[in-house]
């Protein structure tokens, strides 16, 4: 086993307070990507 994720990184990944803000940030960002519109590729729309 190779430890590829440091203790500090893991702390950040699992800390509920940091992750709460990440949750809000991710929800908005995903909304922008997914619900942010779609269209064709063959014409300019």
């Amino acid at each position, binding site marked *: 086993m190779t430890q590829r994720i440091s203790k500090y990184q893991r702390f950040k990944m699992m800390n509920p307070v940091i992750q709460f803000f*990440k949750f809000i940030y991710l929800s908005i*960002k995903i909304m922008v990507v*997914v619900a942010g519109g779609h269209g064709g590729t063959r014409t300019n729309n």
Partner: protein
Amino acid sequence: MAKIVILGAGISGHVAAAHLRRKLPKEHKVVVVSPNSNYQWIPSNIWVGIGRMKSEKILFPLAPLYKKKGIDFKQAKAISFFPEGDKTETKPYILSEYVVGDNKGKQEKVTYDYLINATGPKLNFEATEGLIPGENKTYSVCTYTHADHAWDGLKSLIHEMKQGKKAKILIGTGHAKSTCQGAAFEYILNVEQELRKHNVRDMAEVTWISNEFKLGDFGMDGMLLSYGGMTMKSHEMIEMIFEDRDIKWVLGAGVNKIEDGIAHYENLEGEYKTETYDFAMLIPAFSGHGFKAFDKNQNDITEKLFKGFMIVDADYTAKPYEEWSVKDWPETYQNPSYKNIFAPGIAFAPPHAISKPRKSKNGTDISPAPPRTGMPSGITAKLVADNIIDSIKNGKESLDHKGSLGNMGAACIASAGYGMTQGSGVSITTYPIVPDYEKYPKTQGRQLGKTFGEIGLAGHWLKLALHYAFIYKAKMRPFWWLIPE
């Protein structure tokens, strides 16, 4: 009055039915034909397969909901397509067969003005000899019953490991052309975490086996993504996660035969090898349902409607990988021969793969088929419904709503372990789903700002939030339509 028939009540069929019913006046009929009595939120099967969620939590019966909403429901399966009717029936129809109750086995011609084929994939276990869910120690999580079996198998193995048994766990793809690597990826991370929770991690060797050329390909040719302020390739990110969790991997593997505890495969080098295991979850090949189609004189016209899956407005001209274009991908999901037939979700025939096709030295194709995940399935279903609604309201064909996978984003929130404080998720969003090398030539066809990865507890919360939001939406509770596909 128009009659819209929808085949299938999965993510795309159900989304289409819900929007049609909401937006069309009651004089128009919406009919759903589907063999399963329940709606299931498939992405949460991962948690059913590790015993952290009961299958009842991811499903609900369709008949009462459809009755309440004014949608006709026939618990039946489509058998063949008659887009011109026949000698006795002037309207186009679907020949369907009831699967339950007094009518079981009875066939019916279901006529339509518009047809939405949302039958998704056939889980083609037969394409791999011996790959049978619940047999030969192999399992699947593709349906809730499969996921229940998978948990039974895993639970008894964990029990044996607690008694001192050393075990090998194999998770990935069960065919050289499988897709849906994302689901297997989620499952391997969840299983690995469960082993740790049960204090048996050191008793198990966990291996990923896949037809991908590199880790993190996911049938999408991999991706360049932003992660933690850096730009990295998806294979680097997944390699980091697997190494950190001590998960081994076998790539470029076309599994072709399963025996009790042995997976036989061919690799890209052309070598024939085996992996032994005590528990395996392998995603089967997905195929079309083998539907037949006939014209009004009973001549076979299957090739006008199907190419495995249903033919739509894609460019199916065969061409090499280097010439593939984002423009090959469909925009309206309309069948070119019969303009009142549409196929959103997984039911449409893709023009080609997304990942670079590869052959073994023996000439066997070993590379992922293109995935079509839940979000694009919902989005394409909604746009098909919107075009049908406009066409009915305007009294002429209207195809203003378009959504190519080359101009659409997708979020893959891969659970990496269950738990409100111990859980984790790998959130990857990709824009566009099909890389557009003309628009984004320097970033492997994707827009970097919108193609990003995140690992952590927030990912688990997000996946859980999506579970509740999408089940709320599927149950058509108040203001359900405000939740985007």
